[in-house]
């Protein structure tokens, strides 16, 4: 990778990806929990999730639990691979400077 993936390179989006990567494959994280983990405002987080969804890196599911609306987010296979590539890119920079 010559250049970092500009979609992931943004700090909040990087945190979203890292938080989702920690889950077992297929597991989803609720929007409110992700908001706490990332420490972003609701609007800000929503905008970044939309960007990641458009890039195909996350999938968003909206449903109801006990009659209350619930939004859940998961990393897609493409998203998982993109984060791995980004981490490899960062490690490459550190290794090159060693």
């Amino acid at each position, binding site marked *: 990778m010559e250049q970092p993936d500009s979609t992931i390179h943004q700090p909040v989006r*990087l*945190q979203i990806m890292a*938080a989702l990567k*920690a889950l077992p494959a*297929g*597991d989803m994280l609720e929007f409110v929990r992700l908001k706490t983990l990332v420490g972003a405002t609701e609007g800000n987080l929503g905008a970044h999730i939309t960007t990641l969804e458009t890039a195909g890196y996350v999938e968003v599911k909206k449903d109801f639990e006990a009659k209350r609306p619930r939004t859940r987010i998961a990393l897609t296979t493409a998203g998982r691979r993109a*984060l791995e590539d980004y981490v490899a890119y*960062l490690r490459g920079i550190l290794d090159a400077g060693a």
Partner: protein
Amino acid sequence: MSVSRNEAQGALRDIERTARRSFSAQSYRQAAPFLILWGVLWMIGYGGTEYDVHLANPIWLSIFVAGTAASTLIGMRVKSGARKFDVRIFIAWLASLGFFIAILAVIGPVSGPQMGAIIPLIVAWAYVVMGAWMGWRLVFAGTALGALTLFGFFCWPQHFAGWMAVVGGGTLVGTGLWLRRA
């Protein structure tokens, strides 16, 4: 767009920190209902034992059966709300049961209060060990449970069961609620 060595280091640190917090939060969320369930069952079991020690065996047998069934149901819900039987939880449960029976067979007859202290101490140890991977809240809960169990056993033996109903069961329920909010 170029990334400096310092920026790369910072980004990797952020990824590591966020992933660790996410893993802890997820582990807490999954552990919470088990702690609340067993906290309530301990309150009933130790409370019943304190009320009438002769009822201890039937009460604890009922609690064991009810707790096993309820834990299995909770374990089936862990995968994002889907009802799926997780054989690992069942194996862990069977291994724990076998371990308790083997330990008691080896060390010989133990009194009711000794039995009532050994199990919470093993649970406390397990929380501290699991907490080393899952997050510090479990380490705290295990340390508190172990210390309170020892305090009740040595300092208040005449009402140890009552102490464990309130303090032991209360610690589990309180920790479960605390983990659920993480």
